Each structure stands twice: as C-alpha cells, then as structure tokens.
C-alpha cells in the first residue's frame, strides 16, 4: 500500500513557487490563479488545453439521453451538455503507474 499524502491546493503551489523562485507569496498566488484562469477561459471558449509532458483537457459534447431518477424510477431527459475530460500524457501515466 502506498503511504498516504495530503491534498495539494493552490496555497501549496504558491508556497513552492515562493520558495523556489523568490516571488512574493501574493505574487505566487496570483500566478497560480492566472494559470488556472487562462485554462478555464480557453475551455469556456470551447478550446482544448494541451500541456506537453502533463496532459490534455479535452471537451466533449454529449447528446441528450434519457436518464432515470434513481429514487423514484421516473424517466427524465438529460439535456445535451459539454463535459471536460483529462487525458494524462504517457509520461504522467508512467510516473503514476510506477509511483
């Protein structure tokens, strides 16, 4: 079993940028937000986001389909929607598979 490690957050990413690069804490956090903001904007505009060595965030358009309320069993239409999936790069897959 793999040892359990905590959850990495924005604050941790900013802290590492601050420590490794000497940008201020505020500036480091701003950069973390900026990276996420740029990726969100591109995806919201319908663009896929591809980060070489890491992976791709890929948009998929789902058609309408019939779903069921699991509690009542009543059939309800599930509206067509756009979803986002993550495809890890081969490199990331290997790193994760090999621990």
């Amino acid at each position, binding site marked *: 079993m793999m040892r359990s*490690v905590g959850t990495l957050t924005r604050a941790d990413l900013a802290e590492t940028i601050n420590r*490794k690069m000497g940008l201020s804490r505020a500036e480091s956090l701003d950069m*973390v937000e*900026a990276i996420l903001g740029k990726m969100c904007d591109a*995806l919201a505009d319908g663009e896929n986001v*591809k*980060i070489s060595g*890491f992976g791709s965030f890929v948009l998929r358009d789902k058609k309408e389909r019939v779903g069921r309320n699991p509690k009542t069993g009543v059939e309800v239409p599930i509206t067509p929607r756009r979803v986002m999936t993550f495809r890890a790069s081969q490199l990331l897959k290997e790193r994760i*598979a090999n621990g």
Partner: protein
Amino acid sequence: MIRSELLNSLAQDNPDLRAEEVEQVVDIFFEEIAQRLSEGGRVELRGFGAFSTREREARKGRNPRTGETVDVPAKRVPYFKPGKDMRRRLNDD
C-alpha cells in the same frame, strides 16, 4: 491552447516577470501536481477540478492484432473530476 500559448499569454499580463520566470512558474505548477499524483496523493483546485489516482486491478488483455492473451498488471491511473464552477461555465452560452 497549448503550453507555449499559455506562457505567452501569462507573459503579456505580467511584464514585470522575465519569460524564463513565467516558464519556471508554469513548470513548477504542473510538476508539483504530477509529483503529488505519483506519490498517490490528491490535488484539489477549487473551481477548476480535482486530480486523484485510482487502482486498476490486474486483468487478462488481448493483443488486438494477434488475438493473443496477455497479462495486464495491476496499476495506478490518473483521474480528474471537473469542478462545479467549471462544469457550469462550459455550459452557459
């Protein structure tokens, strides 16, 4: 959008940073996420989504070309769940 476009866009918004610094920030960002996932940890970026890993059991696979049975070993695979805000943003027109 690809990595170089992300770098250019960030550099434009941050004229106080050199291009190499912007690149280093972006490298640290993705490297820290990759590192945490390879340690079996989880990454939660509210609004965007959460990265985690899942165990896949060993299974018998088939070489699609030869039809030969092969053992696929158990392994850990990456998993991503988009955040609520992200899912909403993708769908409001």
